[in-house]
């Protein structure tokens, strides 16, 4: 099975972000970058499929400036066979523009399965996978937490709010990956060495004109500081009173 995984380079979220002076970007100084959470699950899922079938190829693709090569090498150190950078100096906030460029690369690539993350952990629109599928004329199943194959048919589980769907779809198809599918492996030393020699092609990204424009970024208002109202079940009556009279939620 020939599998493509589209991966995005994102900052580590475990920090207090600062807005850059431009007002439309985060201040990247001191930030660590890695594969977006759900894209890591997607890479792992692809590797497990290849290992199970003991055949096939896993190609990772990332759109962005040269720094995304580091992200692609990381995926190859986990086990992906080769990588493609769609080079763009500035990346629009417009998921349709991104999808156009990814679709142009994927078109005619002969992929049986194209994986995306459910959403990128930074800009979090969760749109790129479905849009790319539409542009390719392929079926898409979004946000899946289980994936099995029955001949040429993918059988999946999709999480909803408080429920789930079982979904089937014939390949070739686009699938976006939710958590729960497989925790990404850590690259081994051998994997890291091997990744240095794996092929990484660089091609210009064919981006469409952006029509979703980022005007501003701001930090959300701080929550007022927390308050401990007491200890043990003796304070339950006081809690109930506060919920009734102060918060008015009871």
């Amino acid at each position, binding site marked *: 099975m020939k599998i493509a995984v589209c991966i995005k380079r994102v900052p580590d979220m475990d920090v207090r972000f600062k807005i850059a002076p431009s007002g439309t970007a985060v201040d990247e100084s001191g930030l660590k970058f890695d594969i977006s959470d759900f894209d890591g699950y997607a890479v792992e899922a692809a590797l497990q499929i290849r290992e199970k079938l003991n055949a096939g190829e896993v190609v990772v693709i990332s759109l962005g400036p040269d720094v995304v090569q580091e992200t692609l090498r990381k995926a190859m150190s986990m086990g992906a066979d080769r990588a493609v950078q769609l080079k763009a100096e500035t990346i629009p906030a417009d998921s349709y523009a991104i999808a156009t460029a990814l679709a142009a690369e994927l078109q005619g690539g002969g992929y049986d399965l194209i994986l995306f993350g459910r959403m990128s952990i930074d800009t979090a629109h969760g749109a790129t996978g479905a849009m790319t599928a539409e542009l390719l004329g392929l079926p898409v199943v979004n946000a899946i937490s289980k994936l099995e194959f029955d001949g040429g048919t993918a059988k999946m589980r999709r999480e909803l709010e408080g429920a789930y769907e079982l979904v089937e779809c014939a390949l070739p198809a686009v699938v976006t990956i939710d958590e729960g599918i497989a925790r990404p492996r850590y690259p081994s030393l051998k994997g890291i060495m091997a990744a240095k020699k794996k092929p990484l092609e660089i091609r210009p990204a064919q981006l469409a004109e952006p029509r979703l424009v980022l005007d501003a970024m701001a930090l959300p208002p701080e929550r007022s500081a927390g308050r401990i109202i007491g200890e043990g079940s003796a304070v339950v009556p006081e*809690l109930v009173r506060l919920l009734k009279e102060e918060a008015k939620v009871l």
Partner: protein
Amino acid sequence: MSNNVLAFAESRGGDLRRAALEAVTAARAIADVRGGAVHAILFGAPGIGAHAPRLGAHGADSVIVVEHAAFAQNNPEAVAATIAAHMGRGYGALICPASATGKDIAPRVAAKLQVPVASDAVAMTANAASITVTHPGYTGKILQTLTLTATPAVVSVRPGSFLPKENAKAGAVEVLAPVGDPAASRVKVTETATGNTAKLDLGEAPVIISGGRGLKEAANFTLVEELAAAFGNAAVGATRAVTDDGWRPHADQIGQTGRLVSPDLYIACGISGAIQHLAGMRTSKTIVAINKDKEAPIFKIADYGIVGDVLEILPVLTAAVKQAKASG
């Protein structure tokens, strides 16, 4: 450009979702600025059209009803194709709920119409030419202001951000045939199962009672469920520690890699308050935390914290909530 706005009226299992009323409410606000009409589009098995009056009551001038036996299950390909074709009649915007279903539909339709989508809007303003949304990104740590200059503008709105408002309009029913044969969709939903024993789910409930590893074992989640039942309008959530161990289904997970929720009241039971958990619930209006460790980070954001054993406190709280509900 048309000033009319189309709202996707989400349903599941023959019932209208609260998110449908929220989408109509959000659409109404844009249409009012532009002097246009709101049309709600509703898909389902035959009979779903019976819900049209509720959409009218919340601001839909007309309700486009698309009934087909193959819509008994979610059918994203046929739904998206039908919406995209119907948009050809001339709409300035499409508003979907940013629920699992709405976020599945919105980008499909947007790509068919060759426009971008702005997801998960928590606020929205419109003028004659464009729509500007506030979109939380970076796990809720940064609010992005995004302007959609493409027409039509496709936006999904976060559940709980545009509360359903009654605003009686005609809700005139128009029947529409689906595009293509919905029974021939390449993507087939074979089953929809409810994983949560509570009646309400995380996307809809105004109250969420969430449990963490501090509950000690899966069986103790009955204490959480009993408190949810006492409220009557509550759903049950969980941390990743709990869903990883299989105590609760993954669909119940709240946080960075789970669901994003902002209920009126969030009660965190035996939850430490890891940054990845907070990412999913910090916008809740009121937060209560019960934890035996007074240094637990959850107390930093809890409006009301109780230090103590959650297994001892929950039954007492459940009894007190029952009593408060009974006495009105």
